[in-house]
């Protein structure tokens, strides 16, 4: 299989004297996988994924993206492959129109005019922003700005797309928009990494989940297995989705049940 991300003994701290935020992390991700990264506040999730587009560089160990060591690459090169959508959209957005913001990335990558136009239109359509594209980003509410941040990264058409808590503060419809975007990207064979505290969302879209705790990997397994691991859940205080928790109260229902339909089917097969 095609390994697109490889992390080897990665260590990182934000300052020389400071405590280590990442304390020796190793794993790899294959092309086309959808991987969830979960764990408590401050466990190092954002710090970890910022290594994938070169925003941060390891203090020790290596991060290899598409065969290239991030230590030897410029951010501008890495950002062709990896798009990182910031946790807080206001850290990311800086143009004065939505259209400019979403066009900025692909223009910077020097794509052809035609391709830029196609990618920008597609991104605006997927995020439901076409009708407001001439507005200023800050005229839209916070949760819509999160969609602008998504649009401006997917318009760059990178192989790897990282979502840092995309469903935060989103209502049902916007959450469905995000789920739909991820499904579309998956169809195109993109590799997707999602950081989230929203376990129903993780259960819906991810096959695999990596659990971080205090800068280390606690568990790296299928979503079902992660939600079934009592010890890990206890030590990270993660709560599986409602339906999974209900399933775990019944002997006859599989503890790794992720959807209502799966639950029902086990009652009446």
């Amino acid at each position, binding site marked *: 299989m095609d390994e697109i991300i490889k992390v080897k003994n990665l260590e990182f701290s934000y300052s020389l004297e400071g405590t280590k935020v990442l304390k020796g992390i190793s794993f790899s991700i294959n092309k086309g996988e959808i991987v969830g990264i979960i764990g408590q506040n401050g466990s190092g999730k954002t710090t970890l994924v910022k290594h994938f587009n070169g925003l941060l560089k390891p203090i020790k160990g290596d991060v290899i993206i598409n065969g290239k060591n991030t230590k030897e690459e410029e951010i501008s090169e890495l950002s062709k492959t990896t798009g990182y959508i910031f946790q807080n959209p206001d850290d990311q957005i800086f143009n004065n129109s939505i259209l400019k913001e979403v066009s900025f990335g692909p223009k910077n990558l020097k794509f052809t005019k035609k391709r830029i136009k196609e990618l920008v239109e597609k991104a605006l359509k997927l995020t439901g922003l076409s009708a407001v594209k001439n507005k200023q980003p800050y005229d839209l509410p*916070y*949760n819509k700005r999160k969609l602008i941040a998504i649009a401006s990264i997917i318009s760059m058409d990178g192989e790897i797309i990282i979502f840092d808590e995309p469903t935060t503060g989103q209502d049902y419809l916007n*959450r469905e928009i995000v789920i739909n975007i991820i499904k579309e990207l998956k169809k195109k064979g993109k590799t997707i990494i999602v950081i989230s505290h929203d376990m129903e969302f993780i259960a819906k879209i991810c096959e695999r989940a990596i659990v971080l705790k205090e800068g280390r990997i606690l568990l790296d397994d299928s979503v079902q297995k992660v939600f079934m691991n009592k010890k890990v859940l206890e030590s990270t205080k993660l709560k599986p989705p*409602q339906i999974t*928790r209900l399933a775990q109260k019944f002997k*006859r229902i599989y503890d790794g049940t992720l959807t*209502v339909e799966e639950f029902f089917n086990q009652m009446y097969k």
Partner: protein
Amino acid sequence: MKENIIEFEKFEWQYGNNANFKILINDLKIKKGSFIGVIGPTGAGKTSFCYSIMGVIPHLQTGEMKGSVRIGGVETKNSSLSMLSRKVGLILQNPLSQMSGAGLNVEEEIAFGLENLGYPRSEMEKKIKEIIKLFELKEHAHRSPFELSGGQQQKVAIASVLVLEPDIIVLDEPTGYLDPLSTEIIFNLVKKLNKKGKTIIFVSHKFEYLNKLCDEILLMNEGSIVKKGSPEEIFTNIPLLKKNYLGIPEITSLFNRLKKAGKWNKEFTASVEKAEKYLKEEFPWMR
């Protein structure tokens, strides 16, 4: 009977720069000490509702106001923000928009409001210490909030308001970036303050917590309160939730699935604990 601490009467608000949105609350009375959950899709007016309790509407926003909002009997439009902020604490969704901007560290940021209210030094220090410990921010007390993780920033923003223990606490989707443990800590602390008599207005998409903790849910859409009801009443009402573009709790969906299959004709629940009980009673073979 407890007194009404928040009263909306023929209240209308239209933002100066937006002709398409209007908030309209004809008659709403909230009793002192209640715990009210507010739900609704994007653009429903939840934040504007919070602003009008805090007095941000009309004092800091431009637009036209009709009717009245009374907080503890005093009309917000005849009061000032600084007066209102002694009674009402508002916590916003985006933590960074809440920081004082004075370049303070975490501890100073949390102290900021207390200092403004003129608390005595020793009491202030005690309160700050307590909340920093409860929110697990001890290690970060002397760092700048801007060097923290998203969730840690949000905790600082929440702590700096809750530490003031205002009579009315308005929370506008404050737990978005929080991990499950921190979310639970926040909800529990808010509940504790509620038990001490504080009135809580909690906007959230986390229906499971609202279901567990609230006395009443206000469902907002298109600038108005379209439905008021007990949590279970609202969270098991699939047509109502759908019509207002809200998600259906998984447990409610399960009961609906059973009903559709002709296996369930009793009342629904949206809570895991009750569902366990209901199913074990009805289907002993499942145990």
